[in-house]
């Protein structure tokens, strides 16, 4: 039996959150796994908060993760990771892209953006472990700043917690992108994988 495994990806519209779920889901189905998930589209894509949920397991039924039952939170943006803090428990792992996307309301003086230290402290208290990555910089290193989401996907696999093989997810990535940009994305995946793997050692 495949045990329940809950992944929550949080970020901002335009960061490629939905694409990460699609790639994960396709790979999981190839491996014969049962998948449930959901996301909020519509209003949210216009620069608002975006969350996507992927749940793996034979006894998973609902499209939402019950509070406190998130196994891995992928924070594409620090404050958006913090927004989902109640899904965490002491056995959760947080993979955090430390690059902030400041909403325009901060420039307008209508809200404040917390310091990274504050965010890390809160998330640290609520979870078991945080892995910090500068995914934007790693993406640049891979050859394109547009691959930040793939770096984070690589980091998720770097935890070696998922019941999906590296080959299968790489096949999904290969199939999703045109031949010209697929190698950059594979590179981004590998760099993300290694960064997380190193951090966990």
């Amino acid at each position, binding site marked *: 039996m495949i045990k329940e495994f809950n992944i929550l990806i949080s970020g*901002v*519209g335009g960061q490629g959150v939905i694409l990460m*779920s*699609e790639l994960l*889901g*396709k790979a*999981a*189905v190839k491996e*014969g*796994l*049962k*998948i*449930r*998930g*959901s*996301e*909020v*589209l*519509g*209003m*949210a*894509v*216009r*620069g*608002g*908060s975006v969350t996507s949920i*992927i749940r793996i397991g034979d*006894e*998973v*039924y*609902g*499209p*939402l993760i*019950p*509070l*406190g*039952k998130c196994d891995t939170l992928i924070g594409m943006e620090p*404050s*958006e990771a*913090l*927004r989902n*803090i*109640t899904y965490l*428990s002491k056995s959760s792992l947080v993979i955090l892209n430390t690059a902030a996307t*400041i*909403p*325009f*309301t*901060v*420039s*307008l003086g*209508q*809200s*404040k*953006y*917390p310091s990274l230290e504050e965010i890390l402290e*809160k998330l640290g208290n*609520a979870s078991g472990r945080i892995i910090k990555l500068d995914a934007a910089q790693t993406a640049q290193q891979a050859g394109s*700043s547009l691959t930040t989401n793939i770096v984070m996907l690589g980091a998720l696999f770097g935890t070696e917690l998922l019941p999906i093989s590296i080959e299968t997810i790489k096949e999904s990535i290969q*199939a999703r992108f045109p031949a010209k940009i697929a190698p950059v994305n594979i590179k981004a995946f590998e760099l993300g994988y290694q960064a997380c793997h190193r951090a966990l050692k």
Partner: protein
Amino acid sequence: MKELTISSDAPGERLFVLGNEAIARGAIEAGVQVAAAYPGTPSSEILETLAGVAKELDIYVEWSTNEKVAFEVALAASICGVRAMACMKHVGVNVAHDALIMASYLGAKGGLVLLSADDPWAWSSQNEQDSRYIAEQGYIPILEPSSVQEAKDMMAHAFELSEEFKHLFIVRSVTRIGHARSDIVLGEMSRERRRGYFKKDPSWLVYTPVQARKNKPLMLERFEKIGKAVNTLPYNQLRLADRAKLGVIACGLSYSYTLEAVKWLGIEDQVSILKIGTPHPLPKELVVKLLNSVGEILVVEELEPFVELHVKAIAGEANIPVKIHGKDLVPVIGELSTRKVTEAIARLTDSKPPVDFAELDKLEQETAPLLPWRPPALCPGCPHRASFYAIKLAAKKVAREHGKDVEPIYPGDIGCYDLAYNPPLEAVDIQICMGGSFGIANGLAHVVEAPIIAHLGDSTFFHAGIPPLIDAVYNKANITMVILDNSATAMTGFQPHPGTGYTATGDETIQLKIEDIARACGVKFVEVIDPFDLKKATETIEKAIRFDGPAVIVSRKLCTVIELREKRERKEKVIPYYIDQDKCNIKCDACIELLGCPAILKQDGKTIIDSSLCTGCGICAQICPYKAIIEEKE
């Protein structure tokens, strides 16, 4: 091996899909031949999926001008013996209501299915609304799926049921079905394609009072047969637990939360569960069986207490002394979740949830003040921002002449431009429904003394903007009607419409011009403006507001998202703007405070433009009092 797709004839294979794709797949498997819809979150991807395979599978697919037309298109096909569907969001069902109620009198020949996508928590809607009440009013049976797989299965089956009982069926989806993702097992695909045949039969098809009286008993008869049949449909399942004191009646998606909740509480052997897939009509025999087997009942359903009230009626009628809970323990507002269902069941079973929800609520309250406000906003370079800037500038100027207390009124509508209600634009004073801006403006014109400038989008204009425009002409309402024409139904995913010149399946067609329609309707002041030419746009809007009688402004500029996409295809570079810090007066902030463009930021005490977000629209450069915003050189 060829990659599996939504149109693959591969029964038994598994595919990872969006819920709305699964719904489309269900219709494909049933051999749907006609599909019509108006876009609306969370339903739009259904018709988009069908449009993508329409030619390959020989399906007629259209984006209709509104939901009523969409439903009538499907109804006509059904009358002619062809399998047909219409899909829409819950508020779209209101638009189709008139035809929908009559369709129930008519019944169906070819399988006829209406997909209503409800939106608990109003994620992308103006309200929460439960379409089951509309179905009840019209004696229309509903199927309500508990999972993405079941959504596909029900959709396919609904066409067969519709033909078996000669009656229209509704499938009620919700956001967490349509926008859920899941693996599904594909079924057999019907390859049958029928030729429509219209048989003249006024006693069936023409509704005078005499026909209405004659056909109502037939409708009731059909519905009664369906009421008996639902007891044995696979979507309704009763699982009695030996030691159960509590029975849970779980409708649609709530069933998935219920299964997780009893597992979480570890009381699977203490709770009997009746899964409901047909909330209307309810499987009465199964309900009675459950009511007789336990001392207490909890009805779990999203939004209103629809099933709850019917179950209470069944218990009363059968004289079963059982305590029935529902909305006293399960919220009537918003989506349900495993947590909400767990808490309700825990209270009735004296069991303890494994997670301390009170602690989590405390944590949420502590965290909330730290979180920045991140509302959805008009995109950088959105032409609506420029239109609103010009509208407000012109309107304020005219209003001041009427007296210093006179404020212009800005009725708004449904679409991306809705987002302009947020600061700093604050250009929406009232917004209720599709086309409502022009209708409300008409009423305002007869009771208040102030410039009234209403706005709606191009797709919304075709949907519901034309009758109130004619009303303004006919009844001499002195209002300004602005159509923000970005050549797309942008909010829902850039679907084409009658003003774009092509159809749902990409065929070229006549491109309707909004200005031609306005002139043909008798509007004497009609001007087309380019919102990115701020000066001229403001002057023209001012003239429109000063015009004695209804005036129309078409503010035309392609949606920036599409514009950028096309530029990429043409390999054309986007040239962003930057702020010359030597010229910028840091105390000014006009660009930030007047436009609210996400690309203009404060950073380290400076105002800067994020070149990765800037689309080069140049609006900020036009309003900068210090001429400090400059186009980058290539």
